[in-house]
């Protein structure tokens, strides 16, 4: 029962993450701490395999392997979404750069005032 709440909560948060995202320092710090935590947990699980099963039983899962698998699924959801968002951001920069080059190269055609920079979107913050 506990595991259901945990998994559903994780997936729900992944959906929110996909939709709204959260640029800034706090999510980045959270991700990095989570990475350190996951590494630590992996070391512990390697040394004490029985502990994983005990934890699994605690949250209502039969085998430790299953718990690891569930965790992997939820984690990968965040990974995919994060990568997708990063790619979108990169694409937008790529487009902006392309556009700036295209306009820069347009030859002998400008009409009226020519203010460089007006056409280029300001950079967006890094996620």
């Amino acid at each position, binding site marked *: 029962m506990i595991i259901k709440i945990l998994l559903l909560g994780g997936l729900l948060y992944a959906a929110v993450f*996909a*939709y*709204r*995202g959260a640029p800034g320092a706090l999510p980045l710090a959270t991700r990095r701490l989570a990475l350190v935590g996951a590494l630590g947990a992996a070391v512990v699980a390697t040394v004490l395999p029985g502990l994983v099963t005990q934890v699994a039983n605690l949250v209502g899962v039969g085998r430790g392997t299953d718990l690891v698998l569930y965790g992997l699924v939820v984690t990968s959801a965040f990974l995919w979404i994060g990568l997708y968002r990063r790619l979108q951001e990169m*694409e*937008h920069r*790529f*487009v902006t750069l*392309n*556009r700036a*080059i*295209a*306009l820069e*190269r*347009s030859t*002998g*055609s*400008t*009409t*009226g*005032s*020519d*203010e*460089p920079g*007006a*056409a*280029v*979107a300001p950079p967006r913050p890094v996620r």
Partner: protein
Amino acid sequence: MTSASAARSPAPYDAPPAGHGDTLVIVPMYNEGAVIAETVADLRSEFVHVLCIDDGSNDDSARLAGDAGATVVRHPTNLGQGAALQTGFAYALRTGPRYVVTFDADGQHLVSDAVRMLDLARRGDADVVLGSRFQAPARTVPLPRRWLLRAGVLFTRVTTRLDLTDTHNGLRVLTAPALRVMDLRLHGMAHASEILGTIARHRLRYVEVPMTVVYSDYSRAKGQSGVNAVNILVDLVLARARYAR
């Protein structure tokens, strides 16, 4: 027809409506070598300023468009039609036309429709004039396409509350106030919905005008497949909240 050399040194946009010197026609194009010369020539019979955005074509579209009298801006790589339009808008912002017309390269649109819509925009009652193939007398739209577009209309009505009959029409006239707020970030094919979303968000005054879409074998082959509607939908759903301002 005006000579091609006129495009190299066009008159300023404040020229009087003769030749629509206050208007920039934006034509996004990608591998349109078969038709672009004719499209540009047609446009140049009415408009002094024709701007083709070459979206990284592999063929000689850019040269043909330039020879036909258009100004050409070339994307170094292929970016998508939405990106091409936005490049056109950016060019317009730099050069300051009073009106911008967006026009398809593939020969689907009639220059006479564009002129009619521009005349309407000149009256000043609307910030954006949108073309609709479903208000025109001749119902020549293929049936499956008609159903799909109707779904698009419904989607737009639900999400933006705009009252339109044709939400995916490439023929538009934007006035300067509308141009200033356009910032297309959906670089692919979802830009039609994104433009409407911008209209709704900024409460721009819009009007829909009947026009004719010419379905040739060429335009059918070049046009997007209906399956793309799914991709557009996903793009919109993911982007709508993200870029909501």
